[in-house]
């Protein structure tokens, strides 16, 4: 978070203010220790892809530093336990990862879609701490404007977008689909991104883009 205030009325950092509101963990030293312990449990759970009951039993509170693996790079970020993955990416990482958008923040619109350990998920419906130890791929990881992935290039060619706010989510869902089903039918494309909304109504063109991308190398990232 760039910039902190000299105004005493404004919390100097998320860490301090988080503590004062909750009394589960007291003092910065204890917090660091507790955070470490909790993190180990979280990482252990993540690695095993199961839930460690001890981690669930222990309330995690305050702000803690975690490491997220975003597009193949470890990224340090301080989050609260309730911080969603998409908020960690957009609001807390610095520099931010703003490809995934927040359209509804309740798992409906799909603008926040990211690929977590190979599966497309709503970034607004996963806690950042639950993504620790997992591979997070966002639309930025598939390609760049100069070196687009087949899905991104096909979206450009077919005009699979208008305002573009939902586009990151659709590109991500289609990429995830093509990685598991390289030659989908139109109906399979529709089913593959049924968790994404586009209000501009770019659907016909983005369906075309998905089918074109399938022919051009599918879910690959930029070369």
């Amino acid at each position, binding site marked *: 978070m*760039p*910039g902190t*205030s000299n*105004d*005493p*009325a*404004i*919390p*100097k*950092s*998320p860490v301090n*203010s988080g503590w004062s*509101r909750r009394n589960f963990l007291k003092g910065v030293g204890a917090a660091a220790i507790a955070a470490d312990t909790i993190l180990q449990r979280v990482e252990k759970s993540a690695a095993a892809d199961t839930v460690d009951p001890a981690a669930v039993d222990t309330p995690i509170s305050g702000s803690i530093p975690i490491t997220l693996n975003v597009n193949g790079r470890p990224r340090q970020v301080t989050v*609260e336990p309730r*911080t969603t993955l998409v*908020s960690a990416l*957009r*609001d807390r990482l610095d520099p*931010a990862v703003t*490809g995934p*958008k*927040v*359209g509804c*923040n*309740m798992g409906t*619109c799909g*603008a926040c879609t990211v690929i977590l350990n190979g599966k497309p998920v709503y970034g607004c419906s996963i806690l950042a701490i639950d993504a620790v130890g997992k591979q997070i791929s966002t*639309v*930025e990881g598939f*390609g*760049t*404007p*100069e070196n*687009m992935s087949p899905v*991104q290039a096909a*979206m*450009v*060619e077919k*005009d699979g*977008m*208008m*305002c*573009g*706010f*939902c586009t990151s989510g659709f*590109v991500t869902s289609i990429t995830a689909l093509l990685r598991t089903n390289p030659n989908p039918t139109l109906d399979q*494309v*529709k*089913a593959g*991104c049924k968790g*994404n*909304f586009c*209000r*501009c*109504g*770019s*659907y*016909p*063109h983005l*369906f075309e883009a998905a089918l074109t991308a399938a022919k051009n190398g599918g879910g690959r990232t930029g070369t």
Partner: protein
Amino acid sequence: MATKTIKIPKVVNGVTTAVDVQVEDYGNASWGPNNKHRLINSRMPRPDAPAKTTGTAMYTHDVRVPGMLFGKMLLSPYAHATVKSIDLTAAKKIVGDKAVMAIAVGAELHYEGAPVAAVAAATPELADDAVRAIKVEYTQVPHVVKGDDALKPDAPPVSLPAGAAGRGTGGGMGAGRAGRGGGTSQGTPEQVEAVLATCDAVVEAEYRTPILHHCCMETHSIVVDYNGGDSATIYCSTQGTFGGIAEAARELSIPQGNVTAIVQHMGGGFGSKGGSIGIVGQWACRLSKQLSRPVKMVMDRRQEFIATGNGPGSIQKVKAGANKDGTLVAVSSTQYSLGGIQRANIAALPYQYAAKTVYSQQLPCLTNEDASVPLRAPGHPQANFASESLMDELAFKLNIDPLEFRKKNAPRNGMNVAWQRQLDRGAKEIGWERRNMVPGAVGTGPLRRGLGCGIGAWGGGGRAQCVVTVDIKQDGSVTASVGSQDLGTGTRTYIRAIVAEELGLEMPDVLERIGNSTYGNANSSGGSTTAASLGPAVKDAAYNARIEMSRRVAPLLGAEADAVLFDGRQVMGGGKALSWKQACAALPAAGISVKGQFVASLSGNGAHGASFAEVEVDIETGHIRVIKMVHVQDAGLPLSRLTMESQINGGMIQSMGMALFEGRVMDADLGVMVNPALNEYKIPGTLEIPETVPVIDDEDPRQVVIGCAEPANIPGVGAIANAIFNACGVRVRELPITPDKILSGLMANAAKKG
């Protein structure tokens, strides 16, 4: 048209000679023939697409500036209340004394979603905590949130808050207006009744449409980058780069000239972000001013539904008569427009059709709901649903092909030719001959198919406001700058295409710079006026740049300044050719900078469209599936075909949403919205998308730019409603057409048959 002779070099057997070519130069007052463009009117990918598909396009939601705090709003939970007390103590403990603001005790709140308080905090989570910690006591006041209730004589009065544009009277119903819009009254209700008594077929019906929502994927949002002092930058998700500057300057108490507004990309507007900074902007500015720190304020999805404006609903009572020969002769209508606390517009009936005797009246129906704002063709899809349903009902009664009935009653003016042509084209695309001659009669299984159609009209003309600058540098780089915004309609695409075409360049050779108030003035995007306003100004600037380049380069070529040709990334004349870069190298160090403005002769007005739909209705479950939609749209000179097809697709799909899925649901007793979420307010998703056929009407002879985003949204609703009737014989007069209404209709039809 001027034909010029230009000497260009030609290599024959290794020897370069000069040959004369005849070149048509239309200057800056004409685009020339629609089919003679090189880039304009072709299928160019949008230049901003790579940024959008790779997540690098910067939206207001994505902006983070140093020291920025996250703002959150607390909104009224009641439809009508006064504030009895506010306790901010706990909230201030979390975020600090100066980071919490609230309205005054005693203030009246006129709708669920009226702003009550706002906070700013270092993280979004803390802002949530602070909002939750605000304690407000309300005194509820009687409210009315349903149109039917508001029209009762004993309805609670809906008084308008200060600043609302409407002028409501006591009670739910405002003062009436007769004879607005296309359906100018030519008679009194009594005269219409007298004519109806002589008609071969009369239909009396009430059509209803609910209040709708824009559901922009990017919610209303702003980042106010103000750190004290006398200047600020605002990043706003808006349809008008320049529209919020005055308001922001007022809230921040700084000169308007010191406010820079930036809107690089914006995530959908559809009318709801028409230039004002809105509630989010006002409160973000106030917090920013008080704290001397940047504040970002983003509406959450629920707030977006209840507090950022809606598309008005309608109750339309119509009586119309036609004769056996298929002539519509008399129409009487009263249309109530349901715009919450705002008087909303609705197009007058019988919409685009002509009848000899017409009485038409539009009345606002006010309720304790947020103020309506424009929604893609304000008041038109609503009125069009009524008029196109009405025409279908009359045609059915008279046993006339509904398409022929429309052709017969389209007004005898310049528009008529367009509609005749578009109806024929659409009929061909959908296979109109396949429709059921007797509605609902075809098919034996539960799935019944049917076809329907409708026509619509819009303005889409240009306004004189845009100032475009084309800069050409010594290294050959070309930029076109204007403060205008791209809502996803393709503004960037045609700016680049117009300039590149004029200068003989390709799309990658030009960079458009938009969405910044330090560039030239531009109007906000509303009424589909952007293309017709900005396109001509870009053309003018590009033309002026070409003339200036000609003047500079002609001496190098040994040619007259008016005998220079720009083509194939070359500048030619006098029997010589220079590459674009060679030509630009001769420019002064600063390059050249040329301006352009609106040229009226390059823009037109009057867009027409025809929609067709094929649907499948399951008569056991009432489920409706749209199989195919066709929309034929004219736009004079289509600036960019690919993005225009996207716009037409979008229009069809939004009209499908309105026809089948969408509608605000209010709880009459509680006065609150029941479905303020995207999983409850249903918009079209991937599984519902039919085959769409967007047809650009190239037979339109007009060589001028006309906006077409809104017209593509107008006739689809009626077309789908009519297709449903054709499929299963059920006429649903209230949107959205949901399965329960189909089943009720089927039961009613069965009861009638006995």
